[in-house]
């Protein structure tokens, strides 16, 4: 049943993505609203899917990469929908919906196999994965906003109006700033709970694994972007670029390290 809801979610996310892309191409703002609505429905299905999985297996493993990706896509969609209450960022749907779809599909394509219970610490492992995934998803939103900022900035500078359905630069900058701050905080908490988890299971504070060291590197990169935004008074375009690059590196190392381990 949980799987069925995941498939349903993927279909609705796909619908949202297609409508969003058509909306941008045809420059029809109402289509953007339809896509947001579809994404909202998708997040509800996604939530139901997680609940059902939980009923089927009281401790579904988020430490499996596909499940973590699925969770990230859900959190990302949710964060975006919440941000819409504060910021005029409807145009971001063109990035959020396809990303949510891909995250959901990644979970569906892989075979979900829960690890033996004894391998997992019921508390810190879940906190670590939940917080880190939420952090990654939120940083993904920051990166998406940053990417669109750079595209929109170039279009306005070059006097082209090819991306008229995109949110205003100010909105993209605000989304970028908020998501960067919140995402970095969540990721830091994720890292911290990870240390606690390792400490409880291994009896040490840091394990010398690819996952741990690459995550630390990416965390530092995101830290620099956040610091630059809030303390160094760096320009919006530079921060947008930095956050997009930071997230790309982060996603690469997390997914890459996950695939390797």
């Amino acid at each position: 049943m949980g799987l069925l809801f995941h498939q349903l979610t993927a279909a609705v996310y796909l619908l949202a993505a297609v409508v969003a892309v058509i909306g941008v191409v045809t420059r029809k703002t109402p289509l953007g609203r339809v896509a947001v609505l579809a994404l909202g429905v998708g997040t509800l299905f996604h939530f139901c899917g997680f609940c059902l999985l939980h009923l089927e297996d009281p401790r579904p493993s988020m430490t499996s990469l596909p499940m973590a990706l699925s969770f990230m896509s859900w959190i990302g969609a949710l964060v975006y929908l919440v941000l819409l209450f504060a910021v005029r960022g409807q145009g971001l749907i063109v990035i959020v919906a396809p990303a949510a779809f891909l995250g959901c599909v990644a979970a569906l394509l892989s075979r979900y196999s829960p690890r033996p219970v004894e391998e997992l610490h019921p508390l810190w492992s879940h906190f670590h994965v939940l917080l880190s995934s939420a952090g990654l998803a939120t940083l993904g939103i920051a990166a998406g906003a940053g990417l669109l900022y750079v595209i929109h900035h170039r279009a306005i500078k070059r006097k082209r109006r090819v991306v008229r359905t995109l949110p205003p630069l100010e909105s993209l900058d605000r989304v970028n700033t908020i998501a960067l701050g919140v995402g970095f905080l969540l990721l830091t908490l994720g890292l911290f709970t990870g240390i606690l988890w390792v400490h409880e299971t291994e009896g040490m504070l840091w394990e010398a694994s690819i996952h741990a060291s690459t995550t630390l590197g990416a965390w530092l990169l995101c830290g620099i972007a956040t610091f630059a935004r809030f303390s160094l008074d760096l320009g919006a375009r530079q921060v947008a670029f930095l956050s997009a690059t930071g997230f790309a590196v982060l996603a690469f190392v997390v997914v890459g390290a996950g695939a390797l381990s």
Partner: protein
Amino acid sequence: MNLLLLGMSHRTASLDLRERYAVGDLGPANEKLAADPDIEECVILSTCNRVEVLVLTRRPAAARVRLRSFVERELPSAEGRPSPAELEPALYELSDADAARHVFRVACSVDSMIVGEPQILGQVKDAYRAAVATGSCGPILSRLYQRAFSTAKRVRNETRIGERSISVARVAVDLAKEIFESLEDKTALLIGAGEMIELALERLRSSGLRRARIANRTPARAAALATRFEASAHGLAELPELLEQADVVLTSIGGDGPLLTPEVVTEALRHRRHRPLFMIDIGVPRNVAPEVNQIDAVYLYDLDDLSGMAEANAGERRREVVRAEEIVLEEEQRFEGWLTALAAVPTIRTLRARAEAIRTAELERGMAALDWSGAHRDAIEGITRGIINKLLHAPLARLRQEVDREEGLAHLEAARVLFALDDARAPGAEADQGDEDE
């Protein structure tokens, strides 16, 4: 009589070239051109989007040479004079019916960068008034411009071209919305106090903008506008401080060089913590140096950029433009008819003068023989005048009516032959000289 028009517009010339041709004071330029013996009447139009010189002449070949030299050498400032290679492709030349139609199209805003925008009619009226004030605009061009104004009114009433117009102010607001989430908490700085600034301010206000500052060379004019729009008025000396607070800057002010240079803007940005600054420069010559757009957080648009924006929306207005063009053609043909009818005037005047001369001469001879005077004389005067009028009424009316048709010119020629109007020895011919003197 021939009409000749030489000019350049946003369609043919870059802003860089147009701004070298901006004529600040039309009076002296009109006077200079009208002083030429080959030019009967002239009107110069100079707006931010076009510079055009319209002349009326009896000697088109000579007038064309004079007009070219005036536009090439005398209209631009000595240092801004373009090379022939640069100027030639930017110039267009129209004559007679084409020139008249062009004046109509310009007044109706059909040829505007932003089709349907209302400011151009006011600018054409200003150009006409300036020419009338200097005496360079005579009865024929006056008639042409009056007809152009009534055509513009007709186009505005009978089409929806105005409703669909995308004014500079509207484009500015649309662009501002691509940068800013909302204009409510933003500050606009408007440099200048002319009509464009007024329209822009009106539009910005209706889009929710609350804070506006107006800076002008003449603070009194800025103050008058500021009072109307609940804004604050400033002098140009305060620009650096005003720039620090502004989010949207709109400039339309006269002057020789850029008012806002990259140095001034960079200095202002240092205090703004990289908040974006949106600048629209509709001044000709430009008020903001084009290099300012290279500054990261600054988005600068000038008139040529706005032209590109307007083009993007051209499809929506095409239908209304077609209807407007039909009205323009109709009105231009009416004017042509009137202009052709003018050709009948000398014939009619000569014919009347000849008839009157014959009548007077015959009456004098008769009176001398009869030795009548007083009441008798008055009665005979009235009778003979009545006969002449009644005899001439039908043919003269016919000549006036038919002259704008092809056969009308043949009738005119026939009248001149039948009444020997070109024969200096014919009875009453001595009256022609007196008539011409009038």
